[in-house]
């Protein structure tokens, strides 16, 4: 690892870059995992009193708005050279966190539907801008060789924290935790971004060495290329399958109160620990193998996990579900989250990282998650049985497992037909 070299050589500036990246991304992802994805549902349904169908429409609207803002800001960042300007990105992040702090503190006081709608619309702005800004930090702070492990650290830590705290998935709890964490972050970001600091000057030059991603050598990946959009489609499928299944599972007491929301600290600690282990394993796989293996593992794990849930609902729903089921779910989630953090910067250069991260995370992550969330809420609203719902999810996961090797095989066939020599 380059990090070990930096520590041995006592080069503390790049080491501090790792720490800033992990802290910023882990905190941001924890915010999205808890406050936005789970807190917003609680806010809409419990405090505002909206029916699940209306909340699902609001979630879909938030997804679309976030996507539009993310892509617009990502493209603008690349065109104006902001993607390669660390100070400019830190100032943007300062503004993003400041707005999110206000929104977070205000959330528990939202009571009427129009207030909820306004809150959602405003929330999309910092979320959208935050995507290209935070994800593109990878090119400033983390050398290519260590990206798998650093992405694993971000995924593992954010899921570890989310699995253990807060105990109740309620907007009031989320709001208190987030506001307390954001206030000092705003101060630190203000100090780092609004005046020149020597060590930030040194960090700002690192993208010259670290900036070109793993998959952009020797030729950079173009935004219009089939490679880029193929990966966007694959990640969209991963996020969609995860969210579509999970949102119904967490609404089922027998599954959620024996795992993610178990009153037993040991059970939650087990899940948090599996997140850490899973992320680390994903980091090792990402660093050592071609990306297709990680995708295959993710789809395979999801297919097996949903198969277990379907099997359990059909044959064994009287008994306590074994922890093996959430364990495999957690493994799959940790795998693809690690992949998500490392993949988009590795498909980019300092000139394209804004657009690529915005499109990748925006479409594959946000759009898929929120569309599937809306669909899951809708299926619950129309009374679709859990077994039927998870059977659909399982079918989708199996389809993706099969499609990936078939697509790779066809791709190879096309290469051979075009006369490209075997690699």
């Amino acid at each position, binding site marked *: 690892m380059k990090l070990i070299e930096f520590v041995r050589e006592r080069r503390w500036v790049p080491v501090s870059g790792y720490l800033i990246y992990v802290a910023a991304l882990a905190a941001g992802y924890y915010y999205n995992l808890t406050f936005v994805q789970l807190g917003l549902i609680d806010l809409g349904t419990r405090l505002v009193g909206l029916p699940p169908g209306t909340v699902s429409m609001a979630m879909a609207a938030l997804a679309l708005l976030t996507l539009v803002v993310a892509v617009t800001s990502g493209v603008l960042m690349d065109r104006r050279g902001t993607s390669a300007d660390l100070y400019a990105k830190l100032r943007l992040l300062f503004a993003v966190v400041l707005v999110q702090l206000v929104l977070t503190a205000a959330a528990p006081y939202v009571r009427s539907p129009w207030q909820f709608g306004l809150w959602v619309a405003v929330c999309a702005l910092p979320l959208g801008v935050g995507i290209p800004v935070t994800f593109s930090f990878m090119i400033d702070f983390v050398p290519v060789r260590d990206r798998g492990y650093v992405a694993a650290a971000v995924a593992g830590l954010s899921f570890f924290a989310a699995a253990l705290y807060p105990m109740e998935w309620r907007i009031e709890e989320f709001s208190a935790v987030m506001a307390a964490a954001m206030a000092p972050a705003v101060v630190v970001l203000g100090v780092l971004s609004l005046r020149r600091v020597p060590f930030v000057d040194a960090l700002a030059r690192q993208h010259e060495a670290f900036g070109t991603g*793993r998959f952009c050598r020797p030729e950079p990946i173009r935004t219009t290329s089939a490679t880029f959009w193929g990966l966007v489609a694959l990640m969209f499928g991963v996020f969609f399958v995860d969210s579509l299944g999970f949102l119904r599972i967490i609404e089922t007491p027998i599954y959620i109160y024996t795992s993610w929301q178990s009153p037993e600290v040991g059970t939650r600690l087990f899940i948090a620990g599996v997140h850490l282990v899973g992320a680390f394993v994903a980091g090792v796989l990402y*660093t050592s193998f071609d990306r297709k293996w990680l995708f295959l593992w993710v789809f395979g794990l999801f297919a097996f996990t949903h198969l277990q849930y379907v*099997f359990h609902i059909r044959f*064994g729903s*009287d008994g*306590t579900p074994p922890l093996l089921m959430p364990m495999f779910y957690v493994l799959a989630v940790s795998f693809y989250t690690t992949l998500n953090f490392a993949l988009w910067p590795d498909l980019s250069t300092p000139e394209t990282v804004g657009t690529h991260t915005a499109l990748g995370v925006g479409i594959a992550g946000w759009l898929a998650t929120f569309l599937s969330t809306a669909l899951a809420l809708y299926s619950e609203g129309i009374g679709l049985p859990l077994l039927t719902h998870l059977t659909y999810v399982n079918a989708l996961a199996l389809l993706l497992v099969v499609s990936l090797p078939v697509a790779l095989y066809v791709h190879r066939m096309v290469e051979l037909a075009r006369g490209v020599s075997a690699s």
Partner: protein
Amino acid sequence: MKLELIPLLILALLLLSAGGADVETAEFVIEGDHEVTDHRGALIVGDATVTVPPDAEVPGPVYVIGGELRVEGTVAGDVTQLAGVLALEDGAAIEGRLQHVAGTERTADGAVVAERTAVEVTRNDPGPVAAYLPTALATLALALAGAWLSRRWPTLLENVGATARDHALISLTVGGLVFVTFLSVFVFMAFTLVLVPVSLLGLLLGAAAVAYGVVALGYLVGRRLETPRVGLATALGVAVVVVLLEASSAVPVVGDLLAIGLLLTGFGAVVLTYFGLRRFEPVTLPE
């Protein structure tokens, strides 16, 4: 779930299907304390404590493969004990047949068993030689396999051994992931009954791969002897590895973790090298 329960679970599922019971309603209780009052199908008691309370009646069949089954009420069908503890309290009734194969059984005077069969196993206190005989035989078998392989196809062991040595973290990671995933898949397959043969085959193949990994690690150790008699060196190396694995189990937790880590590293190297058919090289990353 304890690994040693897996063969017993598969055996219980085989007995269940052979007995014509409806496997779709079977429940496998893996852990925790449970009180069963109205379960409608077969019950398999794993590493858990299951109680049938005084006024309850469960239809059976019930298979005890670990943990404890405490009967205070009635089991209408058969009970088969393959391991674990079976406690029949006062007032308990087994209206079917109680088949005792192994494990501990406690029967109160007031308990009623309609029919009882037992597989008598005469157990002698093993002497020091007999206690270590299975390990010694396994070591001998692995050492012979290692000696033969290292003389016949040394490249296979060289590839696996070099991967385990040069890429230990990747081998351990891949070994752990493949082991946990495929073990779960094979156990899951056993529940379908149709796939029990595939499940058994998979478990055997997995055990063979783990053994192959031990042989490859033994080959690595043997090479340090720097002797031209590669077969003998590998056999001695395998013996050293097995002794190391046995000795490490004497240290609680840390020793077990070390032993598991070593086995998984060897197993992962076997997987990564396609059983030694090629050398593993991770992707090259730029600085």
